[in-house]
């Protein structure tokens, strides 16, 4: 293709773009927009619901953890020794705590 022909063709393509006809929205454009608006409202509502629920769950977990920590720290009972623990367990399981040799 010679350069003059190329230049003319390039200008023609550009003219085609410039002369694109005005677009008129399709018949169901308005209805479709309204449907999407309603959907977006619902999704916003459910997002708010789920984020509030997540915050609530986190708060409950933190409250429980704090409660457990507080109980552990303020506990007056000394930790039972392993021997005592074994004895309690053996009693509960009805077994002999001292191995038979």
């Amino acid at each position: 293709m010679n350069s003059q022909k190329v230049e003319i063709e390039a200008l023609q393509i550009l003219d085609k773009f410039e002369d694109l006809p005005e677009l008129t929205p399709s018949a169901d454009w308005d209805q479709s927009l309204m449907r999407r608006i309603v959907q977006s409202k619902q999704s916003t509502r459910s997002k708010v619901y789920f984020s509030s629920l997540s915050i609530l769950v986190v708060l409950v977990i933190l409250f429980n953890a704090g409660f457990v920590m507080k109980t552990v720290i303020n506990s007056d009972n000394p930790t039972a020794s392993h021997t005592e623990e074994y004895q309690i367990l053996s009693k509960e399981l009805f077994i002999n705590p001292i191995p038979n040799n």
Partner: protein
Amino acid sequence: MLEDSILIQKLKTGNLSAFNELVGLYRNRVINTCYKFLLDRQEAEDISQEVFIEVYQSIKYFRGDSKLSTWILRIAVSKSLDEIKKRKRKKRVSSAFKKVHLEDLANWLAGGTTPEKLLSGKEDMKEIIKAMDTLPDNQRIAFTLSKVEGYTNTEIAEIMKTTIIAVESLIYRAKKELIRKLEDILKNV
């Protein structure tokens, strides 16, 4: 017809009839703006709806620093550019123009243009898209908006937050660059 300030106040309260009035006022302009950027009817309709959804959701944050129309058209430009970026990422440019829409087929069945002709028309658009994709965003915006009916350079300058002289220069440089790119593309065909 409601004044902008009254319309904005009503929109901020979630008034649907005010929203319908706003859609009626700007629908054609928004769709055609998106269409000139995307050059695809279905995408233009879809993105223009997204523009109005964004307007509906964000009107409460609109402070009135610019005109309502400028704000809406800025959203339209930004959504269209986002879509182009998504399209580039998905490398859908080539396949996007192979589609023949139902409306085009109906037109053909009614004795209008054949699908082949429609496709060849879109092939030309493919060349311009290729050339457009090489332009910097500001040149692309200025040039494209200048080709949408109803935009003045003053309005384009407001949308782009720049001066009229800058807009004129951007349009001039974009056109020059587009011709050069189109020539390159045609030489390689």
